[in-house]
């Protein structure tokens, strides 16, 4: 996403020629995420039936546990790199931020949220219900099933990357999010993140007292409650819209003052 820029040298006319946000980067990241999702789905198609039926088989270890180890090492590394980058390149002079750059950063934040929502959809819709279908054809003999390795240890850590990343972006680059923590934003990021800790309860339950797979059993309701918090994105978007209106108002005043000075 966009990084801190120096604005003093830029005229208002030059600023207007800049794109509203970093759409190219957002499109690139979205396509990369889509490519990863397609890779995971093809991996499942190829290796679930041939190497994913019995967790004690060497083939299971070679295909599925290798994928798990790659996910559990690469995605946390992406967390550290991305979040550290956003933190260490933070804008330390937000008081001097010009309205047009602030507006651009709001668009970058919305684009960040789009990528987050894109990942959330794959996790909570596409790969989540697919998990129900897999557990109806193969009895689970491990917590690390072919569906879980992609759903819980692939797609979910990936959306945590973008959820926390977007929160850090707002907190480090937008004055109103830096000085006041947005509760809807916290809910929209922390709620889906808590699905991961809830996974511990899910696996414990399936391991010790519930081998059947009725999806609607109370064992799964923790996931449901965490999923509700995604709705807080609505509150966040309303907040962003209100902030942007205020920025546009300031921008308008600035432009009028600029015109008056030229006359």
């Amino acid at each position, binding site marked *: 996403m966009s990084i801190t820029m120096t604005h003093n040298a830029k005229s208002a006319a030059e600023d207007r020629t800049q794109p509203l946000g970093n759409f190219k980067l957002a499109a690139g990241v979205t396509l990369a995420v889509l490519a990863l999702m397609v890779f995971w789905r093809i991996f499942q198609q190829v290796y679930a039936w041939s190497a994913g039926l019995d967790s004690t088989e060497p083939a299971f270890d070679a295909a599925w546990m290798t994928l798990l180890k790659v996910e559990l090492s690469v995605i946390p590394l992406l967390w550290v790199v991305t979040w550290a980058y956003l933190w260490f390149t933070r804008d330390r002079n937000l008081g001097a931020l010009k309205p047009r750059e602030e507006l651009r950063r709001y668009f970058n934040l919305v684009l960040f949220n789009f990528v987050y929502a*894109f990942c*959330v959809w794959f996790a909570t*819709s*596409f790969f989540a219900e697919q998990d129900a279908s897999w557990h109806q054809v193969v009895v689970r003999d491990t917590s690390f099933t072919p569906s879980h390795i992609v759903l819980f240890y692939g797609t979910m850590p990936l959306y945590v990357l973008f959820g926390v990343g977007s929160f850090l972006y707002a907190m480090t680059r937008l004055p109103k999010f830096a000085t006041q923590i*947005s509760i809807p934003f916290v809910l929209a990021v922390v709620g889906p993140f808590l699905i991961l800790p809830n996974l511990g309860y899910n696996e414990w339950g399936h391991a010790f007292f519930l081998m059947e797979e009725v999806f609607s059993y109370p064992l799964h309701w923790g996931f449901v409650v965490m999923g509700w918090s995604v*709705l807080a994105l609505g509150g966040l978007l309303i907040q962003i819209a209100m902030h942007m209106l205020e920025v546009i108002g300031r921008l308008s005043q600035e432009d009028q003052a600029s015109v008056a000075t030229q006359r």
Partner: protein
Amino acid sequence: MQGGTSVRLYGLEWPKESARISRVFDLLVAAILFLAVSGAFHLHYMLTAGDWDMWIDWKDRQWWVTLTPIMAITFPAALQYVFWTKFRLPIAATFAVVCLLFGQWINRYFGFHLWSYFPMSEVIPALLIPGALVLDIALLLTGNFLFTAMSGAFAFALLFYPTNWFWLAPYRLPVEVMGQLVSVGDYISYAFTRTALPEYIRLIERGTLRTFGGHSAIIASFFSAFVSILMYLAWWHIGMLLARVVTTPNTLKNFMGLTDKDEPAEAAQKAIDGTSLQGRSVAAE
């Protein structure tokens, strides 16, 4: 804002640049909402009423008819609060249900059919769009959440079974299999075995003398309609809660290297976020 010529958008004259900003923002928000609602609603629905929706032989006259509208009216109600009170858009319920069905159909094909090899005839999701349309129309006509709950939510549940009957009827035809009388839906599911779903936990209506009268679906629909009213009221308020713009001061501000001069003026902050309450800021309803 300078933008040269003006353009007409949403029935208003806008400076060109403002119109561009508005259009781009609207498109991004629409995409985010579609993905987020589809994901969250689908997760909620699959883990509360999903089993009845996933399998043709679970679509009975008692549990499926009772549970589905109760669990499916949740997100439409929450979104109706936001769409109607903030934007005067009477499309929230239909939008929510279309988002849900999008996720379900994608999954039933790519997951259940292409990966786990269940026939599509076994895993067709329930149809909810007609009930959602009526729910939206009820809000449009009454403009009031209480009347919408009493009429729209009631109709949402009552319409569920008739809505689905036309495509479900063929699966209710009786067939004789190895000397046993079963429905076509049952037979499909016996043929494509579910290893983690043994028959003893199939939660469907049990045949009793009471159900021979054929009233089960009607009774279940009315009970579901009653509970749907309550669910609608609860979820309208959950939507209200989650759409509130609440903020709290960032105690890490100094640690981040920010100073007081970076803070927006208090007056401006109040104008943006609403009234300040003991350090917190809550947007006016």
